């Protein structure tokens, strides 16, 4: 049996309140209001208070400089990265972010006679509260306790075997984009894996490119926007050129369930790469695997400042489709982006839907001359 503590949802308890607290609070708020009123009436200037419990701005500036600081945007504070660190996610595939002894619980590779590899994965669906912006928790449905789910990466012709255990509260599946037999498509009701059950998805990795997987249980919208999706990369037999490789899954979260996202991001956490820039080296090629799984909005996009890049749509062909600085995708569309940062410095990147950008889908790539 696989240790699951890591993926267990965190318990929340609501605070108890007593009648006495209520009365005291009422009394003090009346007294407080009177006092504030008096102060106001007599024109006393109130200095801004920064109590021990109060927050101060961190994104892009400091509120301490009030009132001369510029008007900055973004969230306040930082997330807890113990469970999921978006920076680690960028270059984590086949569970290479886990220590070897733990990794073998979820991933094993075996060489085959024809030179290809058998790759065996264990995926577990669990309900888990995840932090999608500092202090904002979302009751997600996850693969292995993280959103996006673990990235699967294989070489074309490899044989994949994914053992899927559903320990969540609803029926789930894993539906892969890629060649496979319809019997393992994970889309029809008789293919739903019910809570407590398990299923093995087995197929050969093809075609070459950047793909995705997601839950195909119904209602579809909810199963996707609750967090059941991830990246599936198939490398060509002839390896791609050497590059710094980054996985970016464009997603969004409807925290109040009004069919409209409150948070947008790449790799789940709003503004995370603003606060923690992605470090790359100047002059060295960078390859980004971009996948759009944003629910509710017809399209999403990626724009990188101050550079131009080659776009390989779906990553299935070796010729560049476009040389641009902005690429647009509908849900499940994906692309490989290749570029080189000429100058050291901070390059902003974001959705070029300003609304998404200001709701979290914005970050910084920091290029430096030193090795990263």
């Amino acid at each position, binding site marked *: 049996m696989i240790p699951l503590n890591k993926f267990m949802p965190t318990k929340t308890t*609501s*605070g108890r*309140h*007593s009648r006495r*607290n*209520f009365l005291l*609070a*009422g009394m003090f*708020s009346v007294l*407080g*209001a009177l006092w*504030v*009123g008096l102060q*106001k*009436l007599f*024109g006393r200037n109130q200095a*801004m*208070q*920064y*109590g021990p*419990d*109060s*927050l*101060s*701005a*961190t*994104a*892009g*500036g400091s*509120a301490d400089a*009030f*009132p*001369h*600081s*510029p*008007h*900055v*945007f*973004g*969230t*306040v504070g930082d997330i807890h990265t113990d469970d999921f660190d978006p920076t680690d996610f960028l270059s984590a595939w086949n569970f290479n972010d886990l220590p070897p002894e733990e990794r073998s619980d979820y991933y094993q590779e075996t060489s085959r006679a024809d030179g290809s590899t058998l790759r065996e994965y264990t995926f577990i669906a669990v309900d888990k509260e995840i932090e*999608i*912006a*500092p*202090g*904002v*928790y*979302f*009751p997600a449905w996850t693969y292995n306790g993280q959103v996006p789910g673990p990235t699967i990466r294989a070489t074309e012709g490899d044989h994949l075997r994914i053992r899927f255990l559903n320990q969540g509260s609803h029926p789930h599946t894993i539906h892969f984009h890629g060649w496979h037999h319809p019997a393992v498509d994970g889309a029809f009701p008789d293919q739903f894996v019910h809570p407590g059950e398990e299923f093995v998805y087995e197929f050969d990795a093809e075609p070459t490119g950047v793909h995705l997987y997601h839950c195909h249980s119904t209602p579809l919208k909810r199963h996707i926007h609750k967090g059941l999706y991830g990246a599936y990369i198939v490398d060509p037999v002839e390896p791609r050129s050497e590059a710094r490789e980054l996985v970016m899954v464009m997603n969004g*979260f409807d*925290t*109040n369930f009004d069919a409209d996202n*409150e948070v947008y991001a790449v790799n789940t956490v*709003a*503004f995370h790469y603003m606060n923690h820039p992605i470090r790359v080296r100047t002059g060295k090629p960078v390859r980004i695997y971009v996948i759009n799984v944003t629910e509710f909005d017809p399209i999403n996009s990626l724009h990188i400042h101050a550079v131009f890049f080659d776009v390989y749509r779906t990553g299935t062909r070796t010729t560049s489709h476009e040389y641009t600085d902005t690429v647009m995708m509908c849900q499940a569309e994906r692309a490989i982006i290749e570029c080189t940062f000429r100058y050291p410095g901070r390059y902003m990147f974001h959705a070029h839907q300003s*609304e998404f950008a*200001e*709701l*979290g889908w914005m970050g910084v790539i920091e290029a430096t001359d030193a090795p990263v």
Partner: protein
Amino acid sequence: MNKLNNTSNPDTEKTRGNSFSRWTLILLPLVLLGLLIVIILFFGPGQGLRTNFPPVEDLVIQRIELHREDFAQNTSREMILHVLNNGPSKTTISQVMVDEAYWPFTITPKQSLGHLERARIHMLYPWVEGEAHEITLITSTGATFSKGVDVAVSSPTPSWSYLGIFSLLGVYVGIIPVFLGLLWFPALRNIRTRTMHILLSFTVGLLAFLALDAIAEGLEIALRLPESLEGIAVLVAGFAGSFLFLSAVSRRTRERAETEQEEFADKVRQANTGPQVIIAYTIALGIGLHNLGEGLAIGSAYALGNIALGSMLVIGFALHNTTEGLAIISPVARKQVRVTHLIWMGLLAGVPTILGAWIGGFTYSAFWAVLFLSIGAGAIVQVVHTIFTQMTVDTDRLLTVRNTFGLGAGFAVMYLTGLLVAV
């Protein structure tokens, strides 16, 4: 109390014994109730009552202040939100959005608010004059609570100039018109009973309109209040409280005056306060409270940028409120009333407008608005009751054609002048 101390009386002895057991019986349910609370608190209401549902959160943004400060190089613009936790459970404000963009903020005194606790959120945000903004709070559970600013204008901050503006507003709208109305006093001398009754009916019409206006306004605000503040209960309590209190006071005064107690009668004569003068004062008080509510409405509308204070509005209020002065003097029209009394009545009715404008302009609170409006309405209805009672002393024919006409005319005058001042 004397009885209890007198232990020699066997009768009382018996009462004491009884009272001991009576006290025990009175206290027993309370003790048991205490025990029940202790059991619930320490042993829980049983697993069956507990749920794993997310807590119901309900935050209310009660007020949004917008400020701007100009410096040599730049302009700093701020937003200040006043937030109340109207829900039963502890709620944490995690992030703040303005117009669908996350924005940095500071929050005092704390992020996590218990039931009915308040917080103040400060943001540097480049709000745009004359345009609309929407602020959304997102809690730790992802629930969102929004409030809009329809027309963004700089909120008045307590300063001498704003104090001056609001005072002037109060003088124009409250004091001057009321005193103009009082100037009719000499003209009303020596009128006949019949004319007097038409005048009183006219006054009742005016007052009825004011009472309805205050109740409607109070109801409208009460329905906007956070549910836990029980706006309707406040409205009813304010109305009933002032009505009953004033009824009790005027009854007591009248009874004392009627029983001809030498001293009191002298005092009343000296002070020139007959029952009618008291009615006049009560009317002044009721109108004063109504004007306090009116001041609140004007002040807050001005502060929220909802009205442009054109000359039309001031003229409208002047016409509207002049009739209030008439309402005050009609019960004492045929009496000898010292000028000082008239001045006091005018001030009592007019000055609250200034107070209301101050409060409404600087720290508008819907709760207090409901309370003041309902108290005013209760006072006015009590006055209407008193005037009718007074009229029946002179005659048993109350609703004559003339009186009904007067009543309708009073209502119509208020209605028509009210058309000019739709805030």
